[in-house]
């Protein structure tokens, strides 16, 4: 029963954007009744059928690690948080559609997680600035989720959607916009559900199926990433 393979996906984003509600929705298929602050990290598990409907269908555990906090936290909190970023197979970046600053902070979040992940020797691979090339070559699949979609007034929707389109282009990631208090957005058959499923499939593929000799272990993956980014210093 517990012998299914697993992948680890981080859920990152500013305080109060709705990560806990999102994770609860994804794993329990129910709306979270009383959201409260996440202290440290809360984990939940979703069972996903890889390549559903095909003969190669296989079930995996997807661990969603919901890490709490803000980008501007004290360095002691940041270094403690870094413990959770080990061996990550995918990242979901969550931002609040009604709050522009939370979208801007996503760059810093992704750098925080990726830098930690890709520098086992402690070498910082980027000087903290955003570099699009880095994300194009990124071995870790990203997904962008915008929450509180229902709270945007009708006339502002287009503006917000264009902005998030730019964001998803920057991260080279798919985007989903939803409201965490309404399961309808992720109902089976909607385009959102399809995107989500594709993302999880991609994560599983990267972890278990793309193994050519040059990328035998995840560590070698990181080394390649290391080398590529040092090039830009």
């Amino acid at each position, binding site marked *: *029963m*517990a012998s*299914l393979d*697993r992948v680890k996906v981080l859920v990152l984003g*500013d*305080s*109060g*954007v709705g990560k806990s509600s999102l994770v609860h929705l994804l*794993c329990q298929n129910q709306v979270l009744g009383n959201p409260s*602050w996440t*202290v*440290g*990290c*809360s*984990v*939940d*598990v*979703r*069972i996903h059928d890889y390549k559903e409907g095909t003969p190669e269908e296989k079930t995996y*555990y997807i*661990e969603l690690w919901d890490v709490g906090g*803000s*980008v*501007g936290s*004290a*360095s*002691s*909190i940041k*270094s*403690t948080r870094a*413990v*959770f970023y080990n061996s990550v197979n995918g990242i979901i970046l969550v931002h*609040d559609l*009604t*709050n*522009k*600053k*939370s979208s801007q*902070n996503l760059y810093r979040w992704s750098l925080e997680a990726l830098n930690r992940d890709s520098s086992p020797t402690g070498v910082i691979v980027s000087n903290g600035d955003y570099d699009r090339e880095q994300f194009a070559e990124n071995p870790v699949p990203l997904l962008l989720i915008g929450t509180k979609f229902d709270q945007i007034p009708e006339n502002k929707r287009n503006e917000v959607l264009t902005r998030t389109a730019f964001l998803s282009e920057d991260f080279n990631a798919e985007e989903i916009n939803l409201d965490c208090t309404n399961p309808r957005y992720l109902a089976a058959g909607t385009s959102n559900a399809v995107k989500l499923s594709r993302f999880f499939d991609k994560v599983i593929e990267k972890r278990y199926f793309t193994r050519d000799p040059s990328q035998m272990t995840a560590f070698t993956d990181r080394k390649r990433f290391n080398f590529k980014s040092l090039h830009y210093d």
Partner: protein
Amino acid sequence: MSFLVDSVIMFTSQVLFFGFGWLFFMRQLFKDYEVRQYVVQVVFSVTFAFSCTMFELIIFEILGALSSSSRYFHWKLNLYVILLVLIFVVPFYIGYFVVSNIRLLHRQRLLFSCMVWFTFMYFFWKLGDPFPILSPKHGILSIEQLISRVGVIGVTLMALLSGFGAVNCPYTYMSYFLRNVTESDILALERRLLQTMDMIVSKKKRIAMTRRQIYQRGEDQNKQTGFWGMIKSVTSPQTGSENLSLIQQEVDALEELSRQLFLETVDLQATKERIEYSKTFQGKYFNFLGYFFSIYCVWKIFMATINIVFDRVGKTDPVTRGIEITVNYLGIQFDVSECSENDNKTKFSVSIFQFFLLPVPNFLTTYLIKFSCFLLKGKILVSTHIFILVGIIIVTSIRGLLITLTKFFYAISSSKSSNVIVLVLAQIMGMYFVSSVLLMRMSMPLEYRSIVTEVLGELQFNFYHRWFDVIFLVSALSSILFLYLAHKQAPEKHMAL
């Protein structure tokens, strides 16, 4: 004509302060949030602007700038406006935003916020009863009534802050209190944390799998229609769900444990960073200052007790006396009669900074200024230097207050409550500044006292000083107790690892 010029000057400075408050709000406080209600930003900037104008007026009072009639007018105007803001506008908006957050009352926001405001006014009024703050000859809606109450609240806040600050400062600066934390301690704790997370994950996997099986079984059972199907579904054992609740309880306990471990790890990391910092030059400097400051703080507590027990009010600080004696000893001659005007100004400046010393521990600057005040007596410094120094002190303490407020704001705000918290901070800031003026008045020499007395009315200033001492004492002693308990607890937890 001069009145017009003066008013223009005052107005320009107010606009400047307003702009500064606006920028501070946008850049510092609301760094991570989006300003959706501009009312909040406006109210905050207005409070800040009028508070700063009050200090500006005091400085003008010393300098003798502007004509005295226009000064008087602006004092009155400023005071009325700030009281209006602190008693009517800010509490109303606090009530309004609190009510807006509660979903049930969302419809009749205005009604409920008015109710909240009336409750506030009731308690605010009742505040005056137990305190002997007024002579009975004033009317109900006079300005003295309002100021006295605002003064009481503000002085309480200031005394609480300074009591805590006086104790916390040496505790933070001195490395004597730093617990010994090694790299291996942190690694061990992190390992425990990750192990706990793994346990949580495996339990959750079991829950998810069991649920899925129940769901699939349920689907199969649904396919069995008819009478027999129903009987079968009732009699087959439902052990799955019983197991589930048991595992769920275990998961809850483990999650609580993981939270505690996380917080402990953060604590240890912070201590390690502090240890590293204390080894640097800056760290050693602050450690040294910490020893000085702890002595000063003990003395302050002692003096507060003496003041209360022996019923004294507003005598000189012993440190000032000490410096006076030193200066005399060093033989710097000064002619007392010639410097009487400067002397008053000196005393005033000394008392201003002595007073601002309390919540903001930049005491090295203050000792520097004390010394320079005495150099002024010896005509070594020119009087304009003093006002620059006093200006610096006021600015530093305002900055200190703003930094403290910002830290506080980051610690407790969330996206929902940010508006309310900013308004509460604006209220605290306004009350703090108003009561600063009240307390300062006591230390002022007679000729400057008059204008403040005229403007603020006949309040029992002695009371405020006594009240400040009492609350300071209470706050300092309880902070000592609190820090002692917190310090004791931590090494025990550390030992248990």
